[in-house]
């Protein structure tokens, strides 16, 4: 183990970690947005759009991110759509994450007991009112654990971005191994970088989960996601 080597090369990792974090953040926000929209479309049974969302969710859940990225990065330019690595990474992550988030929200919606809808109906509320005032607030609370699991899953998935020539953590590590043959140091820094990125997220998630558990209505079983 060569401390000097680690000190010399850690700036590369820091830079790559910031890049990973930035893309993950944008990707996760977009995924949550896409997931939310998809979920509302499915819940309100909007014709045509409903079928499109269903197809999208199945397509994105049943294919690996790596293949999606390759298609975006190497495939699309052949028919005239050229995207930068970073754009590919963000689009790929949002495409993948959107469906996972949609499923997370759906499981939350399903966990809201039917009696809630019925009570609201008997109070004379309209369909939209019931959805936005009664169902949604409860569903959001129940879907938090799955949402958190998805956030961790998506951050982990960013590790494949090196495949589309994005200088992320894995890319830096592989580069260092290739240049210097210092496998130990390079891999150690790689592991450390992911720990620094993900451990706080993981701890934060379990804290949030513990808090929102009080918000649940009754005792609902939550199917674990991703």
């Amino acid at each position, binding site marked *: 183990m060569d401390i000097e080597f680690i000190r010399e090369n850690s700036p590369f990792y820091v830079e790559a970690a910031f890049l990973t974090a930035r893309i993950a953040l944008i990707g996760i926000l977009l995924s949550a947005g896409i997931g939310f929209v998809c979920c509302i479309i499915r819940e309100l049974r909007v014709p045509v759009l409903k079928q499109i969302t269903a197809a999208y969710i199945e397509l994105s859940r049943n294919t690996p991110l790596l293949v999606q990225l390759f298609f975006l990065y190497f*495939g699309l330019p052949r028919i005239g759509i050229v995207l930068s690595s970073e754009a590919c990474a963000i689009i790929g992550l949002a495409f993948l994450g959107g469906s996972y988030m949609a499923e997370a929200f759906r499981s939350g919606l399903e966990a809201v007991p039917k009696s809630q809808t019925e009570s609201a109906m008997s109070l004379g509320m309209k369909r939209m009112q019931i959805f936005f005032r009664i169902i949604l607030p409860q569903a959001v609370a129940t879907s938090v654990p799955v949402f958190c699991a998805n956030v961790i899953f998506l951050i982990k998935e960013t590790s494949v971005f090196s495949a589309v020539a994005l200088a992320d953590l894995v890319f830096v590590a592989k580069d260092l191994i290739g240049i210097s043959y210092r496998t130990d140091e390079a891999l150690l820094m790689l592991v450390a970088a992911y720990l620094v990125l993900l451990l706080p997220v993981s701890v934060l998630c379990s804290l949030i989960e513990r808090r929102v558990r009080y918000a649940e209505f009754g005792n609902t079983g939550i199917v674990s996601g991703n």
Partner: protein
Amino acid sequence: MQNLGIQVLFQGTNFLRLLEGLWVSLRLAVISMALSVVLGIFLGMRMNSKKKWVQAVCRIYLEIVRIMPQLVLLFLVYFGAAKHLGINLSGEASAIIVFTFWGTAEMGDLVRSALISIPKHQYESGYALGMTQKQVFFRIIIPQTIRRLLPSMMNLLTRMVKTTSLVVRIGVVEVVKVGKQIIDASRFTTPSAAFWVYGMIFLLYFAVCFPFSRAAAVLERKLRD
């Protein structure tokens, strides 16, 4: 132009080669899955142990698997083992080690939660009928657990299949690699090959995973009723 492009898939043995490549990743997924199921069941039974140190070890193991990206684990085993233990692991061997390591944790957690979900009175009724601990476990608890486990096991299998696409990064010749070879070979004859080949690989993965995730969803719905 684009009509010409799609032909690249059917030139010579290209399509067969893609399928063969897909089989390489599927085989890895199936082997790792089988190992994970066996090891995971043992792990899951241990995870409910009351011993503090067993709990601690399981917790750390799960947390490592939960936090480290599979690709990082692959790199650790593939590059790390060669240097440290002096064993030259092939890409396939490292992939099986890593995916089993990961799958066992996931499976263990599934088994643990399935075991917890069995109501206590099931055990108690068994004992009340004079059954031994072993009988209660194998005749009453296990059959019910398996029913509850099936949907999530199928989901795990599709995840395993999807994750095996990562092995192209450690030099295993599987479907993505074969696709690259085909694209490189036809770079000048069909410039749009990349679009069709990667598109096809995308659909192939979908064709493999979709039936399983569908089955999982159907089973889940059935079990709820």
